[in-house]
């Protein structure tokens, strides 16, 4: 315990006495944490945009005029039991007509034609929303199967718009999957570059002390006694860099929230504030671990004497 106290105290003293070198290391760790925070926010924007696109995709099953409602509701139940399905909403033939009239209320010839027909020319339909865009195909395959689709020998389904939209859905699916992969790759590359730069900066600060490390070993200090204060210094770099990063992103997200909400589709400031705790934990852990682990490995070379 006394050893831990001494190591911690030495770490704080070394940090305060190293002056500009300490602050240079803090700056580099801050840049790394800014990159990580920016990536977190960009991922949020990307996911929000993709979710928005996914929201707009669905499959509609149009039923033949006069299709028995119990058959439609039975199909609705079967669809709801599928693991891929998130939501199924039923619009009856009557409601379909009502919606159609509302949609075309200014289109006089269409309304007049409807009035002349007298009978409802529209069938009901089911609107199916899958959990993932990629799952629409398996839902479509289910609809192609014989289960609950026929009334006697006649099919109750007029058409399924999946087949018409298949190309668009497939392309969208590819775009979403590509965007996610690209986002992950860009994240990985940026994080790796930042970590390498941070590691090298911390290695440089330890290189400056290499002679002193040798002296400490010669006066009989254990490896932990020599390494410990450098690791504490690394943790301090991470801690201070976290505070600076959180402060920097406060006005930056506020500005983006004011000016870019329409473009991004999400208020980045609201997102930042509502997720401040999680973001703080992520970047604090990243910063402290990065500082400590970099110090641990950077000093190793000079300890084996």
């Amino acid at each position: 315990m006394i050893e831990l106290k001494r190591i911690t105290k030495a770490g704080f003293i070394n940090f305060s006495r190293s002056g500009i070198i300490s602050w240079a290391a803090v700056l580099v760790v801050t840049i790394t944490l800014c990159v990580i925070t920016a990536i977190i926010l960009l991922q949020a924007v990307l996911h929000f945009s993709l979710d928005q696109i996914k929201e707009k995709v669905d499959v509609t099953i149009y039923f033949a005029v006069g299709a028995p409602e119990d058959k439609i509701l039975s199909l609705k139940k079967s669809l709801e039991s599928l693991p891929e399905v998130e939501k199924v909403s039923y619009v009856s033939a009557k409601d379909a007509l009502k919606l159609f009239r509302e949609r075309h209320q200014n289109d006089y010839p269409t309304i007049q034609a409807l009035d002349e027909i007298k009978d409802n020319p529209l069938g009901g339909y089911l609107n199916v929303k899958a959990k993932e865009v990629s799952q629409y195909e398996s839902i479509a395959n289910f609809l192609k199967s014989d289960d609950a689709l026929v009334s006697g020998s006649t099919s109750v389904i007029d058409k399924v718009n999946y087949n018409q939209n298949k190309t668009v859905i497939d392309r969208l699916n590819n775009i979403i999957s590509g965007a996610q992969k690209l986002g992950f790759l860009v994240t990985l590359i940026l994080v790796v570059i930042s970590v390498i730069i941070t590691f090298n900066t911390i290695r440089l600060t330890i290189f400056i002390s290499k002679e002193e490390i040798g002296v400490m070993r010669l006066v009989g200090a254990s490896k932990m006694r020599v390494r410990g204060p450098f690791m504490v210094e690394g943790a301090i770099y991470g801690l201070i860099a976290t505070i600076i990063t959180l402060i920097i992103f406060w006005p930056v997200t506020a500005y983006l929230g004011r000016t870019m909400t329409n473009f991004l589709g999400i208020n980045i400031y609201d997102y930042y504030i509502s997720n401040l705790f999680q973001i703080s934990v992520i970047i604090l852990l990243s910063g402290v671990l990065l500082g400590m682990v970099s110090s641990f490995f950077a000093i190793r070379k000079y300890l084996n004497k």
Partner: protein
Amino acid sequence: MIYFNNVSKVYNKDAEKGSSIALDDVTLTVTTGEFVSIVGHSGAGKTTLVKMILADEVPTSGTVFFESINVLKLKNKELTKLRRRIGVVFQDFKLLSNKTAYENIAFAMEAVGKTNEEIESDVPHVLELVDLSDKMFHFPYQMSGGEQQRLAIARAIINQPELIIADEPTGNLDAINTYEIVQILKKINDLGTTVILTTHNRGVIDSVGGRVITMEKGKITRDDKNGKYVI
């Protein structure tokens, strides 16, 4: 206490452009309580020899014993324990630049696991011994060469080591400071601590007396019980 058995050290042994022999088949015994001066020109192998006691240099062949311990076979932890039994003074002081005089000595005490109470009582005492009480909270760069070397000696003796190695301790000092350092080392030896001093300063050898080992080109050429500087 210390035994070198046919120790050789060759740098760049496999280099095509020729190797450099630092030590050539050196056999030497140092007994407890001795004051041994090792003299020789630069490059004679003095520093290489004393560094081997600390396992800071590894011989190409031969063995080095500290009492019954084969220094070269020590693992990391055992080596750390051995170094705690030896005090070292270097020509360039090798003080910890970002620590005050007090902290430099306290660090050596912390390294051997002394308590805070022991540190608080012993550090001012040893600083008084080397006449640095008024520099207790000065950093090395705020002290003169002589003061830094006295501080290095204070650090070396604080844990009451069995052996003091002083490698050219007066190399960077003027005559007055050299005299002071030699007197301190003699006092330490009088109290029973073995001292090994390397130097090429004739004045130092003449004022110390005792055993003088002369080295040339990695070999011991003279070993006199009451020797003089004869290079």
